[in-house]
């Protein structure tokens, strides 16, 4: 079985791991680095629960081979909180708006929201819908998630 050592940055910390070449990024994050916040809902890039930021862009980490993340900068849901435990404005907004029910889609949804607000700091309704299309949520009917995105947008613009 082929193996490779990869070095990458995860949530701002350097990581060096020995991985099988057939492992996906999501399995390395979850099983080797213990970052269980990245969820597996389908394994085929269709539900978005495993979304992480890779070099600043959201990707479904179940479709990325770990070896392809060599040298990359990865941010997962665990990388958003501040050291003192205060939440990222997007996380705060999701809590306040009630945008979290079972919560299984939430980490991916939060990552996509962050990328969305990066691109559109004051998103229109269309931009929100478009930006979150790759994240399925079955609990909320998306309504409170849309609300949370707008709350987060305001919070972030306020700084």
């Amino acid at each position: 079985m082929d193996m490779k050592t990869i070095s990458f940055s995860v949530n701002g910390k350097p990581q060096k791991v020995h991985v099988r070449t057939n492992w996906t990024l999501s399995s390395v994050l979850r099983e080797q680095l213990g970052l269980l916040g990245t969820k597996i809902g389908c394994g085929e890039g269709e539900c978005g629960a495993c979304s992480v930021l890779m070099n600043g862009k959201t990707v479904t980490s179940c479709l990325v081979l770990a070896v392809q993340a060599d040298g990359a900068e990865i941010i997962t849901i665990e990388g958003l909180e501040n050291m003192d435990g205060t939440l990222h404005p997007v996380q705060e907004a999701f809590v306040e708006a009630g945008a979290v029910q079972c919560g299984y889609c939430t980490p991916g949804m939060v990552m996509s929201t962050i990328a969305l607000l990066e691109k559109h700091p004051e998103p229109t309704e269309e931009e929100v819908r478009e930006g979150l299309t790759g994240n399925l949520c079955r609990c909320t009917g998306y309504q409170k998630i849309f609300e949370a995105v707008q709350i987060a947008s305001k919070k972030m613009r306020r700084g």
Partner: protein
Amino acid sequence: MNNIKYFLPKSLEEAVKYLSDNNDAKVLAGGTDLIVKWKKTGCPDMHLMDIRGINKFAEMNDLSEGFFIGAGATIEQVESCEKIKADFPILSEAARNVGSVQVRNLATIGGNSCNAAPSADTVLPLIVYEAEAVIVSVSGEKRCTLKDFFVGPGKTVMRPGEMLKGFVLPKPKPCTVVSFAKHSRRAGMDLATVGVAVKICLKKGEKSAEEISVALGAVGPVPVSVKGLEKFNGADLSSDNVLKEIAEFSFEQASPITDVRGSKDYRSKMIVQNVKDCICKAIKID
């Protein structure tokens, strides 16, 4: 079972050399087709050559004969490229219609063609824009118009040892109008039930065409570039009858089937409907 032999070339030269030495090696671009398929087939052994380490593959730039889009450019890069938005607007639009943000961040424009799925969204605008695929191997480069690139479901003209370097898109004539339609079941993240791209070169100040191109997706084993449309050159596109004729003429070259996305019958109707709508949209009549 389960093993992946992985190679990451640093340059184009290294890549084509590797491909020629390793006939079993597959190109890995965004992986959004390849990895999904691999998982669905029980993760068989694979030999992969990852082209994402080669920056040259992702380049987009002006050439004398047109605009070059590297095969490794992501769908997101294509979608947001200002030059493409300006000169090839329906390529940008089709790109925006692919999957989701996450998929577009990974998927490449080259992969969309090389995967040779009849439903691939960006293929249709590339066909009507008369894109040429630039194919490379150790023996050099060759070109193939995209409409002749596909030979069967999942099959392209590329032979072992060859790979796609990118596309060259000639600059459209000034009189050109275009439109694109992706008819799908749901608004977000869906493959096309029927896809249509239309390019028309209008006679100055008129609603008649000097030249019409139509490409159809998801309606046969490979994307369809409608042949013989010259016979409509000069026809008055503001006439319902002409629209209907063009749509039906196009439909005759399609061979839609029934699957979970739609029946043969519905697809047939939607080809005709969407071709008509696309022409109207392109020449701005409703």
